[in-house]
């Protein structure tokens, strides 16, 4: 339930991920099933469960969206697309426009445009994370105050999907380029 406690990390949004990765590694060293290969079944099972929970905690904490979800949940605020307030019509409108622009850039094979759009969204992702960092900074705040930040989760999920899509488009373009190159080489061979 509390990935922060599992990894011995402070309950805040901004974390020293490099240090946490080390903690995760040390815990894995202590708990990995390999270390219990000749132990009794109950110890092997206990080690397996703990190792899995340590891995799960690390998976949650290293990802900003899952980390934020965990922080809200620990404050008793439910998350998930059905539980969060609907995004504002203004945001939805903007989202639609951004997506259209991306689709257009893809159709035109305008990679520069794709990269610019992605960079702009990346900036907004960063801004959202900064707001979460300021709110979940380890000091105690009221649930109401924090719940007002809940729409940030939906926004971040959108940004993530957008960035994934943009990099898929870039990848697709690179593949096409490479395929063309390979064909070119064939002609020379």
């Amino acid at each position: 339930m509390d990935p922060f406690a599992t990894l011995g990390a402070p309950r805040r949004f901004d974390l020293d991920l490099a240090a946490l990765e080390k903690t995760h590694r040390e815990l894995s060293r202590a708990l990995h099933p390999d270390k219990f290969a000749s132990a009794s079944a109950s110890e092997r099972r206990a080690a397996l469960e703990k190792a899995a929970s340590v891995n799960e905690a690390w998976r949650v904490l290293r990802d900003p969206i899952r980390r934020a979800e965990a922080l809200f949940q620990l404050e008793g605020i439910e998350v998930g697309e059905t539980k969060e307030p609907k995004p504002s019509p203004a945001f939805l409108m903007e989202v639609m426009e951004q997506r259209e622009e991306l689709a257009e850039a893809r159709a035109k094979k305008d990679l520069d445009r794709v990269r610019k759009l992605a960079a702009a969204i990346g900036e907004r992702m960063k801004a959202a994370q900064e707001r979460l960092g300021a709110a979940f900074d380890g000091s105690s705040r009221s649930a109401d105050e924090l719940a007002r930040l809940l729409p940030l989760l939906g926004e971040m999920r959108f940004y993530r999907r957008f960035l994934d899509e943009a990099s898929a488009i870039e990848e697709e373009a690179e593949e096409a380029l490479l395929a063309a190159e390979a064909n070119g080489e064939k002609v020379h061979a």
Partner: protein
Amino acid sequence: MSQSEPRSSALLEIFDPKAPPKPIGIDLGTTNSLVACVKNERPVTIKDCDGDAIVPSVVHYGPSGEVIVGRHAQRLAAEHPRETIVSVKRFMGRGGDDPETRRLGPYEFVPPAEGEPNVVRFAVRGKTVTPVEVSAEILRALKRRAEDELRSVGGAVITVPAYFDDAQRQATKDAGRLAGLEVLRLLNEPTAAALAYGLEKKQNGKFAVYDLGGGTFDVTILVLDDGVFQVRSTGGDSALGGDDMDRALAEEVFRLAGRDPATASPSEVRVVLDLARRIKHGLTDAEIVDVENPFGGSQLSISRARFEELVAPILARTGVACRRALKDAGIEASELDGVILVGGATRVPAVKRYVAKLFGREPLGDIDPDEVVALGAAIQADLLAGQGRPDDVLLLDVIPLSLGIEVGGGVVDRILPRNTTIPAAARATYTTQEDNQTGFEIHVVQGERELAADCRSLARFTLKGIPPMPAGMARLEVTFRVDADGLLSVHAREERTGKEQTVSVKPSYGLDDETVEQMLLDAIDHGEEDLAARKLAEARVEASRVASSTKKSLAADPDLLEPGERERIEAALAALESAVKGTDARRIELAIEDLDAATKDFAGRRMNRAIAAAIAGQSLETVEKSVEHAKGIEAAHAESGPLPPPPPSG
């Protein structure tokens, strides 16, 4: 396999009858298989009397029931194409209707009878064999080879392509059991290779392993840091490899000879495929290879340039997987400290050039790419058997493909995304879609696509007996657990009624436990071994392991015992020790289970202490808090929508 005269080197070794059984590492490859062990702290492959480490993964079924494996079987393949199974690994864990099973090849398949699991079945001399049984024959041959050399063989680590899905892994493990091996671990091939390299060179850094085997392609990006091998990402194609190069060349041979492969006899197909392999090998050094036309007529000649043209699409497919793996790992090609080549197909000059260009650096190849995986497996087996070096070596591997379940609309809800470190566990909560829905159908799938229909179906099961409630009221909690072998088990529980069910995921394409048990019994009919005696021996070994480990734990952490707990554990220990003196395997197993139950809470407390100690090394102030909280599986998975009701017939 033929028994050999003692090799000269064997004469120099002194056989110690009290030496513990030696753990072995097995590379069960598509084309070739190898077995290795650690000797004098160095991994070595175990060779036959001709000094040959490689056992071709070819199994021939003779007219009087004899089974021949390896080089000799390979020689029989052309004459008996249907009785000789080549590259059986391609069929592991696949359905009989899988397109992969229908590609160019000489075999005759038998559709599964009503009620039989949907696995590939070869028709061989009037009986049917499954890929698991064929693979078990290869494993038996390797086990015999190891026994000839080591006398007593302990557990085995068997390698699998990193990109193998759950069904393919399960099939491999079943084959190991069927061959009478204690499978210590399934180990991913690239990780095994990295282990062989990493221990050899004692390097830290970021590495890519490019593994183009006979029938599978894997790429793995991993970080080596003071003995910890952490896999960051893995990608690949479990149906792409050197065989595809052979097939492309074979099709070229048919073309040049003016023949249609569709009308060729099984024996002609086998001859041409073998010829293609020889051409491929020849082109490693020569610019042009001339061969006899297998159908008569003038010589055929194939140039390296033409071959490279033919394999370009295969290489391009590997490139896509490599770029995705780098991206998943969050590592740029320029950040890599080394690229390791694995698999015989990486000997092809065009492959080396392609890899060098892809990663922007010359790949490492100082360990024989055919042997490196088996050597790594031997190291891991040694470590698992507690015989390894004192260095703290640890492998942290990942699941190659996302695991999830089908929710409303046929959409996949991912529970464990690809590249999650194993062992892993996560849970998700679902609700009912319809009023008065009294069952949940749970469809477990693996893959990256959005729709369940496009993913690999691993298992279906139904949780029934839920009292009628309005839609959305029932709450079904589904827990996925993936163990260190990468094998999945699924647990489902309805929270309001407490109704629950656990499945080890096997059925869709695998063999169930009874089938494997039956195969083991069938093996006895062939006079191979006495199952009861083996079960007793296994139970005794397990009993002594459990007893000694329990005693060690009691001695290590006596302060963690609660009042009366030591007495309960010692009573269970005494009962086990008395059971071991008898000959009833079942009684021993039950005593082990009792001891297990008696030590359960104690084991949990010991793990909490281990966690606390590990965290203490990192940050002292938070230890107490962590110990309090680090209990059970902590998953933060949001509610994910309704599950459809099971079909009315079910």
